[in-house]
């Protein structure tokens, strides 16, 4: 029986490992593909490096959990092309991001700007942490008060002495 469980665990482990390997492989081909697409512009590796830098910070709007650098969506292709041209025309990284934000909103940024609208997003987790710490402190103090030693009366002390002697 034990053996069976061990075997099953081994099988699960192996398939998990295989899954991971296959997904890493996919991720790598994605990168390679991005590189190959860039070949026509490879006469300017600096430009491509900047394109990757910028587009890793940008979200693809079609497949929302992918960055613009890794997405294969058609719109992502078009947007990368647009970013290339903006780089060529001498725009700064910030200007390029502003260009996209003006069209698609803060949503395209993986790191939204810190402004009143995004305060909850940026500081909310810390606020929760502080609240949890306060709650924990209060709770521990209450518990300590409950478990505080009760002072011994003289009578009880006397009795204890007697018992120890006995």
């Amino acid at each position, binding site marked *: 029986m034990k053996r069976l469980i061990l075997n099953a665990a081994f099988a699960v482990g192996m398939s998990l490992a295989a899954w991971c390997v296959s997904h890493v492989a996919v991720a790598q081909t994605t990168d390679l593909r991005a590189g190959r697409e860039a070949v026509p512009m490879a006469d300017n590796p600096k430009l491509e490096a900047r394109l990757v830098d910028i587009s890793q910070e940008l979200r693809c*709007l079609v497949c929302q959990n992918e960055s613009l650098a890794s997405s294969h969506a058609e719109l992502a292709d*078009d947007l990368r092309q*647009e970013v290339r041209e903006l780089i060529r025309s001498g725009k700064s990284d910030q200007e390029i991001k502003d260009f996209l934000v003006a*069209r*698609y909103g*803060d949503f395209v940024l993986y790191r939204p700007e810190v402004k009143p609208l995004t305060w909850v997003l940026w500081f909310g987790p810390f606020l929760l942490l502080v609240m949890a710490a306060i709650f924990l402190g209060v709770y521990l103090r209450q518990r300590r008060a409950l478990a505080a030693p009760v002072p011994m009366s003289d009578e009880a002390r006397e009795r204890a002495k007697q018992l120890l002697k006995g």
Partner: protein
Amino acid sequence: MKKVLIPLVLFMGLVVFLAVGLKRDPREIPSPLVGKPAPHFTLFTLELGDAKFSPVDMQGQVWMLNVWATWCVACREEHPVLVAFSEKNQVPIVGFSYKEIQPQDPAYKSPFDDKLKLARERSQVWLKRHGNPYVTSVMDLDGRVGINYGVYGVPETYVIDKAGVIRYKFVGAVTPALLAEKVLPLIAELNKS
């Protein structure tokens, strides 16, 4: 007894919070373009020849811009709604044919004029079959004007006021309910001013 209820209430609060989150559509991204002037462009129209269209041509009237393509499945669902809407003549609708020739299309790499001709043909055939709600339709073959309008899915619909300012944007297929409850009241209000 009361103390037992506290975690329950907290938990219910969390459930409601998450349930609301689940119901929200992540594709509904507020457009920063609402309230801004409609980006300028000049594009060839569906009609043969060198006819061009620019948003300036619509200055002084409230109009709608509807992004569509013959390859777009959701457009087919939306189209009868738009055709019925246009028959009431409440507002001119300009079609915006977005990347009619897709990259996987053999014609994608052909010269611009050939692509334009093919896109016009396809679009006209499609409009003949499904009805034409548009006063005209512009051809954004490479999708670059679409980028200026923040297009990221087809269909999309914009309402633009007399001064050329975008007042409303909707991503996805419009429904009769949306037109009746949101778009028409907005158009009536914009027409007054």
